[in-house]
């Protein structure tokens, strides 16, 4: 199955998860998508990962899903998810982009009207999934480019994670500092 086929399936499945309010499954779909996106440098897949993550977060907020406005917003999101899935199956790139844009607008609208925080959910998703792409092995700029995250935000975010601790150096900090001083002529 090519990347388009994988994305179409993820979109179809996610429409079902969204309807069932299965936020955990949406998060899993997002994580699968970013892995594929990182390997294939696929921005559409990365965009889906961010969208699925945002939907996972929205469904987890009681004050959002219980709000009267959510019914309409949720219906619009579901319709756009199904439209995006159809478009991907039919390889209609234009309709796919319009549908995804519609979902992102609905997410941002929900966030604006019902969210508690100043930083938008979709912007947070950009940084989070750029961080995931970096953890999966992409270079910093490449990861930022994949999701449209700002590199400064990304560096800040990564700095608060333990991913660099996974790649422990064979040399301790004292040895590394001594080597650096030697290279720099003892400065």
């Amino acid at each position, binding site marked *: 199955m090519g990347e388009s086929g994988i994305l179409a399936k993820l979109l179809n499945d996610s429409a079902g998860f969204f309807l069932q309010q299965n936020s955990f499954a949406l998060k899993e779909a997002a994580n699968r998508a970013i892995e594929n996106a990182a390997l294939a440098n696929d921005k559409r897949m990365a965009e889906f990962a961010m969208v699925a993550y945002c939907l996972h977060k929205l469904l987890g907020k009681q004050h959002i899903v219980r709000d009267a406005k959510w019914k309409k917003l949720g219906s619009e999101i579901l319709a756009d998810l199904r439209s995006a899935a159809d478009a991907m199956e039919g390889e209609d790139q234009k309709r796919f982009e319009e549908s995804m844009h519609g979902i992102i607008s609905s997410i941002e609208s929900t966030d604006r009207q019902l969210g508690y925080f100043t930083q938008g959910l979709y912007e947070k998703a950009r940084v989070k999934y750029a961080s995931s792409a970096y953890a999966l*092995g992409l270079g910093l700029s490449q990861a930022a480019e994949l999701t449209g995250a700002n590199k*400064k935000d990304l560096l800040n975010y990564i700095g608060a994670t333990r991913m660099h601790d996974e790649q422990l150096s064979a040399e301790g900090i004292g040895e590394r500092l001594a080597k650096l001083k030697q290279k720099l002529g003892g400065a």
Partner: protein
Amino acid sequence: MMFVFDSSALISMSQTCLVKILRQLREALGAEFVIAESVYRETVSTPLHIRRFELNAVRLKKAVDEKWLRIEQVDTDAAMDIVKTANNCFFAKGGPVSLMHRGEADALALVRQLNAQVLVIDERTTRMLLETPLRLKELLEGKHNAKIGARKDNLERLQGMRFTPQSTAAAL
């Protein structure tokens, strides 16, 4: 001694208020500190118009205005060559894994162009690709739970671009 800075290193230093330490280091070493024009755009020109990044951009602009951080033009063809080679080192699911962006490649091209002794970069993947490509391959395989192919010729070509004296042949 010449130091080439990637944007990641400058971002880290400016965000942690350590730009003045860089100046002190430069004076202590009598070194030249150089950045690519794209790095200047990324760390100064663009963020000067974004309120929350303006202060960091001003710090770095001051360094350039005071002439202890110099901007150099990059050989575009050389940078593109580095990106193309780097992004055809590892393969998964039938296609190449694009690890490097033009941003890192500009800094690497500048290192070669100016025969710089030091590349200052706050970024794991580029460093691993140049210094320990086998470990990077293992990282990719571990993270993706997939077999990652490696093109020995491209890895050796990258090594041969004189960023590091280590050879990849034995590692592979």
